[in-house]
């Protein structure tokens, strides 16, 4: 991996207002690029807002939609990772994270694990993705996951096994849990634990970009952060407030930590693959799915 400067754009998108949100993106991209960042990352569905329900078909875009041209153009200066809802040619709508570099999509990740329980109802309006892949950029090999994906530790394991030196988690995480004595939201506590755990055990950078603001009474708590391969928090945005926060991601840290803790070298991908294939087959034949 090449050393690079990352900017976390902890924004507050308007719900269902593409035009407003596009302007918001261009503003943060401009500021991130001006301050020397190589990559700027936005939260899940940063272009659309989160609790869309019936607004989904109104804000979904195919990736070649001309309305994305300003973002493509901006990505000639700085790599842009942003969240949107992608409409496929057969008119499915998928929560997506796009990586734009020099005016082109290098990769689009579709949220694999739609969240449909509690306050969430994604599967009513959205379709889920079917793959987790790391991808190459001039900076290095990276991977993107979206919110609920990370609550399934296997997605981060796949991304790491596929060689990602940086795992981006884009989220719209509702703040909940105000238990006494902790001074942080229950959801924040869990996310911070996950970010540190993934970074430490997969010996890579974890970049969590969460949004702020409210939608229909639900708060999004922010607290976006970059965690280094030794589990150290390198940068963290404030809770609840819009922010643009910078961090330097260095290859030397990866090298040093992977030397001290060669977990990635020792990971038995073949074992994982064969055992998961066996379990999947057994479940299929036993339970018919």
């Amino acid at each position, binding site marked *: 991996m090449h050393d690079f400067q990352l900017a976390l754009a902890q924004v507050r998108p*308007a*719900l*269902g*207002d593409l035009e407003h949100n596009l302007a918001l993106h261009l503003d943060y991209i401009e500021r991130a690029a001006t301050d020397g960042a190589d990559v700027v990352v936005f939260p899940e569905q940063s272009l659309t807002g989160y*609790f*869309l*329900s*019936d*607004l989904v078909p109104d804000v979904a875009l195919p990736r070649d939609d001309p309305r994305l041209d300003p973002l493509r153009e901006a990505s000639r200066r700085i790599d842009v990772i942003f969240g949107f809802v992608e409409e496929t040619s057969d008119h499915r709508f998928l929560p997506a994270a796009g990586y734009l570099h020099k005016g082109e999509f290098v990769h689009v990740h579709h949220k694999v694990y739609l969240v449909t329980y509690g306050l969430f109802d994604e599967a009513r309006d959205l379709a889920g993705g079917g793959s987790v892949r790391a991808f190459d950029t001039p900076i290095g090999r990276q991977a993107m996951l979206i919110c609920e994906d990370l609550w399934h530790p296997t997605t981060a394991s796949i991304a790491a096994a596929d060689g990602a030196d940086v795992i981006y988690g884009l989220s719209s995480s509702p*703040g909940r849990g*105000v*238990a*006494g*004595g*902790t*001074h*942080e*939201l229950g959801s924040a506590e869990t996310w911070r634990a996950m970010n540190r755990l993934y970074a430490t055990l997969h010996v890579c950078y974890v970049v969590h970009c969460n949004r702020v*603001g*409210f*939608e*229909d*009474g639900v*708060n999004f708590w922010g607290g976006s952060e970059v965690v280094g391969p030794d589990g150290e928090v390198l940068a963290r945005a404030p809770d*609840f407030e819009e922010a643009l926060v910078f961090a330097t991601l260095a290859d030397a840290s990866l090298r040093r930590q992977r030397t001290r803790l060669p977990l990635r070298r020792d990971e038995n991908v073949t074992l994982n693959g064969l055992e998961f294939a066996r379990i999947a087959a057994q479940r299929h034949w036993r339970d018919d799915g």
Partner: protein
Amino acid sequence: MRPSATGEMTVDVSLRERARRGLDLDSGLTCRVLEAFIRDEIEKFGIQRAVVALSGGIDSAVSCALAARAFGPKRVLAVLMPYRTSNPASRGDAETLVDQLGIPSTVIEISAAVDGLLGELDEEPNPLRRGNIMARARMIALYDQSEAFGGLVVGTSNKTELLLGYGTQFGDMASAVNPIGDLYKTQVRAVATALDVPAAIRDKAPSADLWVGQSDEDELGFDYATADQVLYLLIDEMYAPADLIDGGFDADLVHDLQRRVVRSQFKRRLPLIAKLSNRTIDRDFRYPRDWGR
């Protein structure tokens, strides 16, 4: 939970302890979220002002103090709406809070309106009907002040009374945004302390003050502290009533609370719409309230 070795029933300490811990909250963090909630959810409608019905009780005191923090004191109007039988101490407590917060206030007597309506009735209504009429008269006055002051109505119903249905639909339950609807009564008390709500308001017995000497806990037949524990375990932790009874909670109380929650569900939802079309409001026509904001 089970008979101990000596045969006596022991209370499941862990279940009560679980409720106690679950109800314990970080007041500072809670206030931060709630202030931001009021500001954000009202400002996105192009409004930076709020009106609150201030009764002199703890719930409206907390909503009022949070609104004053969210917008600054000059942008929050406290509306005091006494009826002729209201406890004078309630008004005094409300005025103390108004002075402490430095917010504007107005007093709108509802006696003439309520008595005028009562005078049109053929029979003397029971206390419940009288209480509902008063609560709805206050709603009318409050929403008029909302328009006059140019501020949205900040609600004052807590989670306990919303779950129990202990409120008047289209009366005191009416609001544009409700910062305390996810706080149980005992949690409202903790937040009130953090907000420096005067002790006189925090320490008095909760009362809807709809008739002389009314007490919530006497009328309901249980105390809020226990009710909150039961509701927390049933609602938030999703225990079954039988689990609570096994855990030492009074069976009659658990069943009573469960019944009240079920019976009042209609109060927490919009009126039912008879479905005819393929896209019925709120059934399959589902847009967020913050549509485009």
